[in-house]
């Protein structure tokens, strides 16, 4: 178990900069997700930690040891690959034993026992003598996990391990991975492009975009308080309504009447009000219990079983609203949108500009 420190890591491939100076500290024993769209550099970063790529500059420390120049086989890390990469010519047991065999610090019998223990943890001990080709995708994945943890690595690295599974298996595995983490307390770094996965499983989410860290925080933090335009856009479904924050409150462009209450983090100046689609209520009059409202025109409504999606126009800007289906649908035409300023978030223009690329 160790703390992972990443300092100013840069990486270029053939002239293109893929990692632009990443600084990150991953606390010992935590479960951290590297989240971002394709091409954001999350897999490259993981591979730099693993030693499968060499950063162009920067340092990587594991438990205080500088491993930046160390070959992957000496770093004592466990890795799970997207395609599982099980050795097809070895049995399940031999696959799981491989790491112990390479470390060669105990007898073969002890290695086999430790391998079986690891298989027990993932509940695959009955398959020890099978070949990988005889296993289903979900089973192969568990074996890959057992193989990674058997040699007692310092940090566990997971490269989009769930993307090849069908939806139900994926949900099951998510829970299993979280339970495993609680049980072993292993520092875990998990790469994914799926925000729901990252939110469900992690203690900390690191949001990456185009080679840089956009935001680091607990899942709920990032969801409720996106620090940048990108973060607000990528996580969940949010609306961004242009306006200006003043001492009296928020004035949304084109909305007449009194200024609206300021969300906690607002700083004066131009910017956008960020409100999640599920935080807005559409009705014929301002809803009670919400301190902000604006007149809107309902353009369309789409019934989606458990929810209804409205597209409304708020002073020339399009806003999307998600409403539960058990509330009567508001017909097209004039209406009022209400929300609570405590559920909203302010993105000042300077923030937007700094992180716009």
């Amino acid at each position, binding site marked *: 178990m160790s703390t992972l420190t990443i300092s100013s890591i840069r990486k270029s491939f053939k002239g293109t900069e893929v990692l632009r100076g990443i600084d990150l500290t991953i606390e010992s024993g935590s479960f951290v997700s590297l989240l971002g769209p394709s091409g954001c550099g999350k897999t490259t970063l993981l591979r730099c930690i*693993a030693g499968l790529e060499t950063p162009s500059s920067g340092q990587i420390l594991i438990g205080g040891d500088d491993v930046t120049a160390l*070959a*992957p086989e000496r770093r004592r890390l466990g890795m799970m*690959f997207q395609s599982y*990469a099980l*050795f097809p010519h070895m049995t399940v047991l031999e696959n799981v034993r*491989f790491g112990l065999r*390479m470390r060669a610090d105990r007898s073969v019998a002890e290695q086999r026992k430790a391998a079986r223990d690891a298989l027990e943890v993932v509940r695959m001990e009955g398959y020890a003598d099978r070949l990988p080709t005889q296993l289903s995708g979900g089973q192969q994945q568990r074996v890959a996990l057992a193989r*990674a943890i058997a040699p007692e690595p310092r940090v566990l690295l997971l490269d989009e391990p769930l993307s090849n599974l069908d939806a139900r298996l994926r949900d099951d595995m998510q829970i299993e991975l979280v339970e495993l983490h609680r049980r072993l307390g292993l520092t875990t770094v998990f790469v994914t492009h799926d925000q729901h996965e990252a939110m469900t499983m992690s203690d900390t989410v690191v949001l990456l975009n185009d080679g840089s860290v956009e935001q680091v925080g607990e899942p709920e933090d990032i969801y409720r308080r996106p620090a940048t335009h990108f973060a607000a856009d990528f996580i969940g479904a949010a609306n961004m309504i242009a306006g200006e924050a003043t001492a009296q409150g928020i004035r949304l462009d084109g909305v007449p009447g009194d200024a609206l209450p300021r969300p906690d983090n607002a700083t004066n100046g131009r910017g956008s009000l960020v409100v999640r689609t599920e935080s807005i209520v559409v009705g014929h009059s301002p809803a009670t219990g919400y301190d902000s409202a604006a007149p809107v025109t309902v353009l369309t409504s789409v019934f989606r079983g458990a929810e209804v999606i409205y597209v409304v126009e708020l002073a020339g800007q399009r806003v999307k609203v998600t409403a539960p289906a058990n509330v009567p649908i508001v017909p097209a035409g004039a209406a009022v949108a209400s929300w609570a300023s405590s559920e909203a978030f302010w993105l000042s223009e300077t923030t937007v500009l700094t992180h716009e690329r």
Partner: protein
Amino acid sequence: MTISRREPWLLLLPAVALLALGFLTPVVGMLVSSVIAPEGGGVTLSNFERLFGSEYYLGAAERSLRLSLIQTALAVILATPIAYIMSRATSWVRTAVLVVVILPLLTSVVVRTFGWVVLMGPAGALSSLPGIELLGAGSQGLLGTEAGVVIAMVQVLLPFAVLTILGVMSSVKQELEEASRMLGANFWRTLRHVVIPLSLPGIASGATLVFALSVSSFITPRLVGGVQLPVLAGTIYVDSTVGLDWPFAAAQSVLLFAGVILVIAATLRLGKVDR
């Protein structure tokens, strides 16, 4: 596709017919003639009796087998690391090596052997290398030596070995090597425990291909080794074209063919034992 039902057969027929005529018939004819007495009339095993009773021919067969095994081993030992490097190298390196490997295949074996004859002659560059006498070089340089034949033949065979093994190596995914590295195996141990075991089927089929080619070659052994080092393929050639003793030559060909099939079968069997 339900177009004319006859269309595919019409397309296939010419090729199949030509092969039946120009390929199947000669091969079958040869097999048949091996059991025909040279003087005409009757099925007989006399050709085979003569073959197995002759020290000269058995010596040629033994030489064929021995040299082919050596050549196959050398070709495979050289080709495997080359194929590995090619499969893991950048695309321009891979293309360059591919060109170097394929270029000799586009030239006639006569031309390539010619080059070796010049190099291995008494005045040739190879023959003046220090220590070359260890390989048996004498007054004729490396010509007339088995070592010379092996060197020239391996050059002819190497491209085939490389191309076959490369096919298999490319299918061993890099992720398996990476997984092995993460589990604590360094580069060399990864080769030993992961890459080579998974490439064995390809190496085996490369070896059988090279062996079959090697044992059937007579031009290079004749030009480099000379008539004093007969190989079975060479005696077949002489007996067919000069001696015009086709049944006897056919019997030798059957022996040759049988030897090749035996080796292929043995390799396949070895492949299965491994599991």
